[in-house]
């Protein structure tokens, strides 16, 4: 299928303007002791169903659950792993959003599945396939405060082992595409690019035995510093952000013929809607280097940085671009 329209990860939780924000109210009620964890889960379930239908309605062919059960991009996983606690708020890359910094207190392991149950829920309530999304071991290590290992390589190795177990379970639960988010690998403005060698050492173990298409997702910047070596990593595909990392077009010429390129082409961090013509031209250019059947089109990153209406408009625009090109 040419130009598969794909979601990347997060999705806005607020309702459309004027709608009832049930999840927020339920969480506030829980803080006051007036709602239970079950009430919150039910509000989350309803929102996930709504978001999945909204994506499919907009023309998305590979959706996500919007990560609406996550407080931030890291702690949902860190909380589920042995060896972590969480500490104060830090800014998440160059966004005006925050995460609680995970702190590594002891050996990292995964005592039980973390996201499998919520993946099953999403898959059962979505008219199109659902992508499972995990924070990658490199980024989780890079943004955490390590008080135990004293050696990033050792920490990333244990994280890769734990996340491999999670990915295997997600595949067994029916996930056909499993994404590892590694924004810390990219050259995010104002920060140096990540150390590819650290991830390269553990990548084989990370995807070992995972019966699904694995994706490595970088965003918020370009990956040109790593050159084609990035594509030597044993992932089934790569998400690149062509909005915050326009230089990524340079590495596409060296894109291997047997992998998926998930191209982030609409800006998931600005409300301005891209023109259909401009996007179609950009995607057509990418299609000169990558077979359209392996060229997926997507927002630049998770859509949560946008208000709800703007997020949906961006997805519709991707579907319009696909229709124009096929």
């Amino acid at each position, binding site marked *: 299928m040419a130009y598969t329209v794909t979601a990347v990860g997060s999705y*806005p*939780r*607020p309702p459309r*303007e004027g709608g009832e*924000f049930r999840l*927020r109210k339920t*969480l*506030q009620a829980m803080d006051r002791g007036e709602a239970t964890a079950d009430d919150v889960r039910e509000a989350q379930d309803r929102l996930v169903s709504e978001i999945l239908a909204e994506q499919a309605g907009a023309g998305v062919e590979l959706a996500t659950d919007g990560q609406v059960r996550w*407080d*931030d991009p890291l702690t949902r996983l860190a909380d589920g792993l042995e060896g972590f606690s969480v500490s*104060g*708020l*830090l*800014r998440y890359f*160059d966004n*005006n*959003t*925050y*995460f*609680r910094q995970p702190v590594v207190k002891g050996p990292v392991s995964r005592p039980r599945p973390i996201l499998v149950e919520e993946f099953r829920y999403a898959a059962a309530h979505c008219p199109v396939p659902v992508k499972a999304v995990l924070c990658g071991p490199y980024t989780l290590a890079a943004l955490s405060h390590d008080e135990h290992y004293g050696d990033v390589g050792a920490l990333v190795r244990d994280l890769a082992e734990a996340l491999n177990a999670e990915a295997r379970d997600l595949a067994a639960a029916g996930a056909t595409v499993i994404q590892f988010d590694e924004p810390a690998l990219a050259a995010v*403005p*104002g920060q140096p690019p990540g150390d590819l060698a650290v991830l390269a050492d553990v990548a084989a173990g990370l995807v070992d035995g995972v019966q699904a298409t694995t994706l490595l997702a970088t965003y918020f910047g370009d990956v040109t510093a790593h050159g084609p070596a990035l594509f030597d990593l044993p992932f089934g595909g790569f998400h690149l952000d062509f909005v915050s990392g326009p230089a990524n077009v340079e590495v596409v010429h060296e894109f291997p013929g047997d992998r998926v390129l998930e191209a982030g082409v609409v800006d998931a961090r*600005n*409300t*301005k809607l891209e023109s259909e013509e401009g996007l179609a031209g950009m995607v057509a250019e990418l299609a000169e280097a990558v077979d359209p059947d392996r060229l997926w089109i997507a927002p630049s990153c998770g859509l*949560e*940085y*946008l*208000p*709800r*209406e*703007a997020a949906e408009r961006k997805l519709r625009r991707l579907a319009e671009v696909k229709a124009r090109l096929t």
Partner: protein
Amino acid sequence: MTEGLWTTQVGSLPKPDHILAARSDFARGRISRDELTRLEREATADWVRFQDEIGMDVVVDGEQYRGDMVAFFAEELPGFTQGGLVRSYGNRYYRKPIATGEIVRDHPITLDWWRFAQSLTDRPVKGMLTGPYTICDWSFNESYETREDLVMALAEVIHQEALDLQAAGAKYIQVDEPAVSTRMDELDLAIKALGMVTEGLEVHTITHICYGDFHNAYPKMLELPVDQLDLEMANSNYDLLESFREYPFTKSIGLGVVDSHSHRIESVDEVAAGIRRSLEIIPPERTFVDPDCGLKTRTVEEAKAKLRVIVEATHRVRAEL
């Protein structure tokens, strides 16, 4: 007494419960704008009186009438449209403004509030503005070709506001740029924009920066064209002082001595010790002692307790000079 070692504040102060309730009532159409303003003026007067009583040298109005520091300005500037809700963390959301047209200033934004606060005290009241770089960074941009274009358009309108504050008699004008530390690659842009804001100002100018990796930005940040840099020192254990030993700190410092994001009330002893450490490097005539950041996330009681500690510790150290 030695001239110097003044006490001041970064800007925001907590809103008492009845102000929070009134803001929410106003948003739901249950009370009028006039009624809300009346309550906000009362709360402002309470905070000015408190600062007078404890002997704060440079006073703030406490921003009882502001919600988000960026949205407050965007709502008053033609060219911005109110955006939808965007999540910042956990269950917290804010309305992120959208630049949809040409940004201009068709009326003063903070001037009446500054005049009101200054009418209540003989102590100088700081003019409090949000900087152009931060307003751009925390907004969506649909109308300007580049970030730089939007930042410079904002610099012009904030400059106009600063000139009005100066003309009205403000002796201190602070231009907050908390977003500057997110992207060190754009520090030059922030410097250029702040230069436009402070051009022609003869009063004492200040910028407050937080959440930053200053070790990488120093001494480059001394190029920010203001008289005073207001910095969080307490929550980084005064680490920056080491950089100041290596390369002299040439400006006045806003010395943050209490953590604005912790419930714990610091002791007078520890705050005094922090001030003494700084005085080894920066002289009293260039030192303004204040909290690390705005105190709006604390309770009224916590904020008052922290401010009392700041004044007492500063007076203790002053007496030793």
